[in-house]
């Protein structure tokens, strides 16, 4: 999509807004319903598991707090990357894009560790309703993070090849919108799943 940007930014639009950015906000709105439905499912089935392990026996708050912190920091790196690209500082831009992606990878590594630890503790996908709702909700979020990391790395490679500049700032901005949205979803999940047991 990198190449569309140039054209898009120079197009006249009736609302004076970038079309891709508008489509992306609509997409994020749509995602709210996706996660809303998943979170509803989690909450509706809360406490209806027939067998353990139950949430309070297995969720590791200190560890997940670190993951949350990691994702918040990646959001910070993302805005810094965007600001750098917008002012044409591609050196900084490249750096912060890479940092964002790496922080995303750290989060995914943490989630991988958490999942395998839970499986080891006896909580599989089909063990009980808590397991099913937990894995599907956090797994969907993890899939979003994975896509985000791939996207960020693609941008970083583009930047390394000198094909990303202030003219494509909109592409970076949209990537950022996606990344921050994934972050706010985690903010909700952290509270609803981990802290409110």
């Amino acid at each position, binding site marked *: 999509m990198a190449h569309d940007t140039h054209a898009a930014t120079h197009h006249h639009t009736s609302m*004076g807004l970038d079309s891709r950015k508008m489509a992306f906000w609509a997409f994020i709105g749509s995602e709210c319903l996706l996660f809303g439905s998943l979170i509803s499912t989690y909450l509706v089935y809360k406490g209806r598991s027939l067998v353990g392990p139950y949430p309070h026996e297995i969720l590791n708050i200190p560890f997940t707090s670190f993951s*949350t912190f990691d994702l918040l920091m990646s959001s910070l790196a993302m805005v810094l990357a965007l600001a750098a690209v917008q002012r044409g500082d591609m050196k900084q831009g490249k750096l912060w894009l890479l940092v964002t992606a790496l922080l995303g990878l750290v989060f995914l590594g943490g989630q991988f560790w958490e999942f395998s630890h839970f499986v080891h503790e006896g909580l599989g996908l089909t063990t009980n309703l808590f397991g099913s709702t937990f894995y599907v909700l956090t797994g969907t979020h993890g899939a979003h993070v994975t896509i985000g990391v791939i996207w960020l790395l693609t941008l970083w490679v583009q930047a390394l090849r000198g094909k990303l500049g202030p003219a494509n700032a909109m592409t970076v901005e949209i990537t950022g919108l996606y990344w921050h949205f994934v972050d706010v979803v985690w903010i909700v999940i952290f509270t609803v799943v981990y802290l409110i047991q």
Partner: protein
Amino acid sequence: MSEQGQAHATTGTYLRIAAILVMITLIEVGVFYVPAFQAVLVPVLLVLSAVKFTLVVMFYMHLKFDNKFFAFLFGGPLLLGLAVVVSLLFIFYGTVRLRTGS
């Protein structure tokens, strides 16, 4: 581009927001471990998480500075999603209570 010319957040703002987000997260985890807060834990956590949510959306996603229409595109479905969660909780926990009560 309409974004240009509007007040943009600076790097300083981003860092301050990050600091606040980390602090709130620390408070959340802290509250979680303090037995005295157990009674009000749920509302406190929900409020704190809503604050974090709002900060990220407003500053990192620039919704505070950006065109109001984006806020509508995001906020409308967000409220709808929230309504879905709340009404399903009412329906499921409501019927459970009615069933056991009768």
